[in-house]
């Protein structure tokens, strides 16, 4: 942050007038729009979100409807063929996109919220018991490889439905929860480091001297100044979360049938690719690849766009 300020005063890149009057969001959007690569990322995300929202409306078949036409290759009746129970692969893909995107977005929303709160409060109380407790706890979570911990958590939570009060959690929500827990430490670390860099700044001292409470400090003063790296991390975490959901569901420990997700579609596909059923692989694999690629590109682009130091490339 301090470096950024130093750079603008040096005036290495003259700021364009048009950018000054725009809000941060608008500035970022226009910077993103200038690069073809980031446009591709945004287009990919937009496409997947549209499929997630609208896909079930245009799905030609009920994704769970069985039919005697099993393992048929693509035809005009079944755009992507049928699987081993005769269910329409394209319809399952459309519904599965909604599930996979929901799990990814939900998990990252959870990880971002929890991690940011934990990391910010830890940073504010740096060196004290709370800080040590939180950050060592995060170390424990990070000591497990992602693909070891998520199956354990999801496996633990893996019952058909868990009832918490009026809230019924199915396997979809539980996988999201497990991935959310696992993605928390990254956000906590980023948030803590950013807070540590900011607390020594004069404006925080000023706010403190005016008697600002912890809540005011966190959300009024600190959050606006540390959000950029967290948003960038969120984009990368989305890519990881979507890949993780696919992997866990592929192992049979994630989203359970009859619900479809990209991961459990590939698990079904694994048994039949040896007999050449390529159409079972194409859609879910493309979905996963497009999602991970798009969010990674978006993350890269956001990192450049949100960094005031990178005015022009």
């Amino acid at each position: 942050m301090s470096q950024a300020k130093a750079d603008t005063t040096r005036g290495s890149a003259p700021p364009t007038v048009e950018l000054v009057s725009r809000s941060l969001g608008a500035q970022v959007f226009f910077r993103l729009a200038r690069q073809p690569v980031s446009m591709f990322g945004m287009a990919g995300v937009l496409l997947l979100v549209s499929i997630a929202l609208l896909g079930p409306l245009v799905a030609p078949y009920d994704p769970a409807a069985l039919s005697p036409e099993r393992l048929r290759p693509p035809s005009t009746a079944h755009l992507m063929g049928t699987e081993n129970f005769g269910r329409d692969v394209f319809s399952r893909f459309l519904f599965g996109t909604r599930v996979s995107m929901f799990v990814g977005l939900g998990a990252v929303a959870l990880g971002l919220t929890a991690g940011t709160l934990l990391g910010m409060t830890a940073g504010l109380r740096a060196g004290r018991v709370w800080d040590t407790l939180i950050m060592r706890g995060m170390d424990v979570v990070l000591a497990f490889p992602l693909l070891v911990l998520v199956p354990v958590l999801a496996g633990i939570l893996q019952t058909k439905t868990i009832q918490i009060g009026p809230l019924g959690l199915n396997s979809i929500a539980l996988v999201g929860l497990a991935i959310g827990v696992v993605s928390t430490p990254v956000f906590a670390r980023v948030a803590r480091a950013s807070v540590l860099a900011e607390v020594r700044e004069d404006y925080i001292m000023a706010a403190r001297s005016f008697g600002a409470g912890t809540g005011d400090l966190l959300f009024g003063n600190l959050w606006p100044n540390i959000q950029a790296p967290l948003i960038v991390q969120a984009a990368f975490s989305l890519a990881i979360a979507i890949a993780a959901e696919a992997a866990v569901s592929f192992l049979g420990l994630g989203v359970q049938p009859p619900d479809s997700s990209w991961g459990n579609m590939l698990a079904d596909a694994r048994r039949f690719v040896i007999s050449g059923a390529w159409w079972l692989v194409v859609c879910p694999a493309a979905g996963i690849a497009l999602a991970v690629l798009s969010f990674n590109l978006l993350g890269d682009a956001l990192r450049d766009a949100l960094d005031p130091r990178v005015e022009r490339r």
Partner: protein
Amino acid sequence: MLRLILSRLALAVPVLVCVSIVAFILLRLAPGDPAQLQAGLEASPDVVAAVRHELALDQPWPVQYLTWAGRVIHGDLGVSYSTRQPVTLLIGQRLPVTAQISITALILIVAIGVPLGILSALHKDRVIDQTVRVVSLFGISVPNFVIGIVLVLLFGWYFPGIMPYEGFVPLGTDALASLKTTALPSLALALAQVGIVARLTRSSMLEVINQEYITAARAFGVSEREIIWRDALRNAMLPVLTVLGIIAGFLLGGSVVIESVFGVAGLGRLLIESFASRDYPIAIGVMLFIAVVFVVVNLIVDVLYGVINPRIRSGYESGEG
């Protein structure tokens, strides 16, 4: 150097203790009763109670944990509920499989990723560079098990008989056949990480090449070949080395899925199977083992880091690290 290793180990112990406690609690929170599963689903309550007593599952959790932890200190991870074999023996049987696949993958990652990155950096913004960057981006974006399924499709259906796509032959039985069975799983594991290493090598090479000491070396008339291979590469490898530590962890986790794709009975399969049968001693034993490997790998990376970069080494030795 010894001080660095010891202090790192001292830091790792509390984390590993917490890891074991968390794993222990998580497993017991899971629905499903191991005693019932072992006794059989139709067993009478008396039989189930007897099995539960035999497995010591009728004791309070803290007692169970402390008994287990006391044995672990002596290198005993307990006995599997279902096969009654020692967990250390089971890990010992499965580890060579996972290790062989992971190490082959790591070799592939370095052997493909680093040269690609150097090539890309030396031809910055030209066709080679653009191609490498696009290919690595796609490599990063396709999860390893998806690549694995595509490989199974390719070698199981379109080009059958060239490469085995299922099972595993131990190295001792038939070395060539063993390497062949490792090839596809390792490739699937490696491809996703090759992109990361290529990208990192590229950016780190570019950064180093623009440093003043490289310009100085050029001014002194040192040959370009020597600059690239002796001066630039050595310094550019630092961040790559760090990421290789992280990648080694990824490989362990990734092998959990890859072993399922290729039907290989390694550590990952053992872990997944133990979840399904609620075989707590195996599950917690494997999880702890993986966490220990993770810690050790990162320690080795830290040490290597010091070997390559003397400044960091002296920092640690003077107590500033």
